[in-house]
């Protein structure tokens, strides 16, 4: 691709046929050091660790996604239409016996006109210039929603510091990307951590309700982390500005679940930040958290290790919390010094690369319930995380053996995110208005812009609500109005009520819906740069997406240049001869059209 970009300028467009199997050597179009400028490491904080000086996290990265190309690049599935294109080339464009192919030749036209140019400050400025009559928007900021849920109800309508609340934030990321915007399978980079956290929250449901815990666990899912930490920077910003139900003083520690899909072939690694650990109280807390993780791993098939060299934190949302102030925190990953994911942020990071394989000859319904090995290992990680969180929140060690993640739920989640999001299980737990967004393909984890309802957000929202909440006996109308009975005015501050579609009744198209009460909430995930209207800032993400006109492509046969010139020449000749004829006829008009009458005099 770089050769095509830097070539002679005779490349007008590129059409890429998607391979059916992943390249064995790995491929990552992301950079070698993801999010290196918006993390916590800089000249002021750990200068020797900044810009991946000690270890390159993504060694296979070739930075292709961040190059500028002057021509459109389309991707095509290897199906009948692509075969048609190949056939057209074979029939018309192939040189025969070393001589040039003859006209008519097969040509392709690719249209993907993008309205925005140059950079974000330019396109945002052009968005708001109201001098011209047509107020067309040129680009939009990347944004979506962060999903979060406390393990016990908090008053969410009141923002700012909550007295006597000590919160453990456990987070995962909701997004990924690839070189092409419509494809973003993100199996290891996003789905593995996301599913593990959902399973851990599910495992802790009963334990957090039964036991009285000192600290509240805050399950958080950040969107837009691929593009310089959009979601986590927004949440930290809101907490600093007292626009969030808790603030940074309430946060006790942070546990982040990164990429954990390849755990079964390696260990789990617990990454910490060496700079903040120089403070002895932070170091004590981190040791405490690591001890809890080790205790949780006892008796399970999980082995956890810490890296034995001083190295920075891998790219993680926790870095944005550290930018605000030092916190104790641990990032769980399945790699030590560089990603074990060979296809980071590429279109090959799919079910195949994660080894989510189903035996052949299974119906979709059977595949949904089939427990793969990957599901088993993710369930183990989830069990460990859940038990560690229980201990960290002040629970007793004797009670942790009953906390266990459900392998079947994990398998179903893997199926829903990686194979097909429209299946019998998701149809039961999603609200009727969002059923239309489910489709039969793998979920696209790209964040996109606010107008698009993002499928990972929808799925995470309903999964978290159903897995951590409880079914309550409330009418549909009360449920939709966020109350449990007619006079209830308090519940809407603490809980969130969702009416979901439910199971299909036998012999009928109707569904037996029910009301789910949970503590799930969502907040806008847009970079603070767009709220502050400072588009040249290097502190926050400033990614935007251009608006476009219709995207289409077509193939057709073109005639030779000589034929075109001939047609043009004949046309000009007809024009000139008709002009000549008209002139001759008008000058001899009186001879040709004489009818014996005097011509009338013209008046002006």
């Amino acid at each position, binding site marked *: 691709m770089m050769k095509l970009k830097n070539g002679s300028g005779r490349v007008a467009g590129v059409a890429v046929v998607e391979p059916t199997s992943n390249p064995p050597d790995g491929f990552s179009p992301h950079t070698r050091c993801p999010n290196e400028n918006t993390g916590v490491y800089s000249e002021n904080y750990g200068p020797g660790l900044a810009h991946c000086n000690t270890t390159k996290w993504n060694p296979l990265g070739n930075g292709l996604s961040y190059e500028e190309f002057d021509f459109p690049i389309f991707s095509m599935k290897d199906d009948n239409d692509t075969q048609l294109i190949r056939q057209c080339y074979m029939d018309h464009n192939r040189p025969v016996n070393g001589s040039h192919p003859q006209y008519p030749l097969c040509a392709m036209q690719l249209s993907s006109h993008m309205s925005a140019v140059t950079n974000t400050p330019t396109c945002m400025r052009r968005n708001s*210039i109201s001098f*011209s009559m047509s107020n067309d928007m040129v680009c939009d900021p990347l944004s979506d929603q962060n999903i979060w849920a406390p393990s016990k109800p908090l008053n969410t309508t009141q923002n700012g510091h909550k007295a006597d609340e000590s919160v453990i934030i456990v987070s995962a990321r909701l997004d990924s990307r690839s070189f092409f915007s419509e494809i973003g399978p993100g199996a290891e980079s996003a789905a593995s951590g996301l599913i593990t956290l959902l399973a851990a929250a599910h495992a802790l449901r009963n334990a957090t309700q039964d036991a009285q815990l000192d600290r509240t666990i805050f399950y958080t899912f950040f969107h837009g982390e691929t593009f310089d930490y959009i979601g986590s920077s927004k949440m930290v910003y809101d907490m600093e500005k007292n626009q969030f139900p808790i603030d940074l003083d309430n946060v006790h520690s942070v546990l982040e679940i990164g990429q954990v899909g390849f755990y079964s072939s390696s260990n789990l690694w617990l990454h910490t930040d060496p700079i903040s650990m120089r403070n002895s109280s932070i170091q004590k807390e981190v040791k405490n958290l690591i001890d809890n993780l080790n205790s949780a791993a006892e008796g399970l098939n999980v082995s956890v290790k810490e890296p034995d060299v001083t190295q920075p934190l891998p790219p993680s949302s926790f870095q944005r919390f550290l930018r605000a102030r030092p916190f104790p925190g641990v990032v769980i990953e399945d790699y030590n010094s560089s990603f074990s994911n060979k296809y980071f942020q590429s279109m090959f990071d799919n079910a195949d690369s994660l080894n989510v394989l189903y035996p052949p000859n299974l119906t979709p319904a059977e595949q949904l319930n089939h427990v793969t090995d990957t599901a088993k290992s993710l369930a183990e990680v989830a069990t460990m995380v859940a038990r560690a969180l229980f201990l960290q929140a002040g629970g007793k060690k004797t009670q942790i053996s009953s906390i266990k993640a459900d392998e079947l739920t994990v398998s179903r989640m893997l199926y829903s995110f990686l194979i097909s999001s429209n299946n019998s299980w998701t149809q039961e737990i999603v609200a009727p208005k969002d059923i239309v967004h489910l489709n039969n393909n793998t979920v696209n984890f790209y964040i996109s812009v606010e107008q698009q309802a993002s499928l990972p957000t929808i799925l995470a929202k309903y999964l978290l609500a159903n897995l951590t909440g409880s079914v309550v006996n409330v009418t549909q109308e009360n449920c939709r109005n966020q109350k449990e009975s007619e006079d209830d005015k308090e519940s809407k501050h603490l809980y969130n009520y969702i009416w979901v579609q439910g199971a299909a009744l036998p012999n009928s198209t109707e569904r037996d819906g029910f009301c789910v009460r949970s503590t799930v909430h969502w907040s806008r995930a847009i970079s603070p740069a767009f709220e502050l209207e400072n588009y040249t800032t290097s502190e926050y993400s400033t990614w935007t997406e251009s608006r476009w006109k219709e995207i289409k492509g077509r193939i057709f046969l073109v005639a030779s240049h000589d034929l075109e010139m001939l047609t043009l020449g004949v046309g000009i000749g007809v024009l000139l001869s008709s002009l000549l004829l008209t002139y001759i006829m008008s000058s001899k008009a009186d001879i040709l059209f004489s009818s014996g009458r005097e011509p009338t005099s013209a008046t002006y």
Partner: protein
Amino acid sequence: MNLERLPNEEKLTLCRKYYLGGFALLPFLWLVNVVWFFKEAFMKPPFTEQTLIKTYVKRSALGLLFWVTVLTTWITIYQHFRAQWGEVGDYLSFTIPLGTP
């Protein structure tokens, strides 16, 4: 309007009106003056008012030349450098093309 039918004094007044009107930042009036009265000023046999008409036509042509150079220079500079001027270029423009810098 057919100039053949006008008496010479009226031709002179018309030419003067167009000449003076062009000073109100209307170079097209000078263009019309030059094209319309060219035959009258230089190709017809001499008549009394012709000297004045000649001066008006010559001065109109001069003014027209000045305007043409100024506008051509500005338009060339603007079209060439608008993209590089960034913010200033955008605020000067009435419509900004999509898809090109």
